[in-house]
């Protein structure tokens, strides 16, 4: 589990957007399984980034659909049938989707409308939707920024478990140094668009982290 730290405007979110191809980097490349995402567009880009799942600060669920339907939507990239094009969720994915919901501890809410969930629950459903995508890398852009401390902790524990038990590579952009040091294996510090450190979390000192947030002299 990699955590990227940095103050506002240090380039954390830009990094994430470049990785998934929402922004084009002005230099450099993003390689997924040997293919450079920055040179792709349209359909080729959509297919090349299938191994990447992104969750962001807001859960971005479809509020009027059920939790289960929202999770099933994560699989649409693999199902291009007429039925899914017309708005049906792929039937064969309902079982696995329930499994993913159980994994995030919300199986009992499967039938509820996504709009009725609390922030923490919604974010965990977003994680389940990302899992339904069957990714190799789970990217998280400030996944807990709008959650209260307890819900934030719950989401972070979930991400941590996915990284250590399910062998998923988790890259998480965070605002809060204390969460970062608690959950990360590897810490990356960004300041004004540049990497300041990139080391195992245990080797990063509090002073180095504090310097990331210092006002520019």
């Amino acid at each position, binding site marked *: 589990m990699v955590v990227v730290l940095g103050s506002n405007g240090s380039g954390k979110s830009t990094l994430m957007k470049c990785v998934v191809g929402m922004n084009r980097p002005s230099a450099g490349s993003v390689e997924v399984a040997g293919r450079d995402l920055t040179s792709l567009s349209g*359909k080729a880009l959509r297919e090349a980034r299938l191994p990447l799942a*992104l969750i962001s600060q807001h859960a*971005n669920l479809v509020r009027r659909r059920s939790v289960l339907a929202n999770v099933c939507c994560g699989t*649409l990239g693999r199902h291009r049938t007429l039925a899914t094009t*017309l*708005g049906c969720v792929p039937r064969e994915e309902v079982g696995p989707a329930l499994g993913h919901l159980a994994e995030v501890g919300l199986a009992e809410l499967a039938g509820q409308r996504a709009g009725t969930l609390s922030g923490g629950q919604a974010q965990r459903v977003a994680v389940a939707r990302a899992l339904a*995508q069957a990714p190799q890398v789970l990217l998280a852009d400030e996944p807990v920024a709008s959650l209260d401390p307890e819900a934030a902790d719950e989401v972070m524990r979930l991400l941590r478990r996915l990284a250590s038990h399910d062998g998923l590579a988790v890259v998480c952009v965070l605002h809060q140094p204390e969460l970062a040091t608690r959950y990360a294996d590897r810490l990356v510090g960004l300041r004004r668009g540049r990497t300041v450190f990139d080391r195992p979390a245990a080797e990063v000192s509090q002073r180095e982290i504090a310097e990331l947030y210092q006002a520019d002299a």
Partner: protein
Amino acid sequence: MMSTTYKGPMPGGPSPARQIGAVAAVVLIAALFVQAWIVVQARPQDLVTGAHGMADIISRALPPAFDQFKPTLLPVLETIDLAIFGTVFGVVLAFPLAILAARNLTPAKPLYYAARAVIGVARAVPDLVWALLFVTAVGLGPFPGALALAVHSVGMLGRLFAEVIEDMDMGPVEALTLTGASRIQVFTHAVVPGVLPSLLGIALYRFDENLRSSLVLGFVGAGGIGFLLLTAMNLFQYQTVALLLIVTFVLVACAERISAYLRTLVA
């Protein structure tokens, strides 16, 4: 403590410039109203002298000709069907146009402008004028009225639909795009569930408006109760006119209640 000097306008009392502006606005509105009074040739005294004529009409309209109720049933159905036809075709045509005319979903700028233009023209021409045009084209009867309602509805619905689509939450659209869903899948799975309730509400409201419009369309020969009303007026059958007005009132009131109820269901 830091002390700062603030040079902007103070909250509370308006500045002198704003006071002058307010006075100018009041004078301008008054001037506009005076010219309107002159141009419409308003003669309040005629209302007083005309009271006698009105009383005469009312006395001749009473009691309403309730024995004429049965012959109104078919035109009532015609009026309702005009509204149904106009609303259904309006929705079917307005929805794709609205997608092209919504800035956040339009596939290409030229299509956006083309769709906006079509919607603009359909809306700018009143349904009564559309009805006159279609009566000339396809002859008298309910059909030109239905066409007129459909075309005008495309204009009204197209614009409102496009606004709903532009105001929707783009988060789920972004999220689904990133899961690898195709453009059409994103549309059916994120856009449609997001906007459908609002669109249904607007369409129901449009039905209600179309029903009221279809009453008037009869005046230009496009069928329905309006046509009966016009005929009765021309033949000085004021008791029939009274009945038709009662029927109209009940019809519109019912449609309003039903459409309001259905809108609470889809909200």
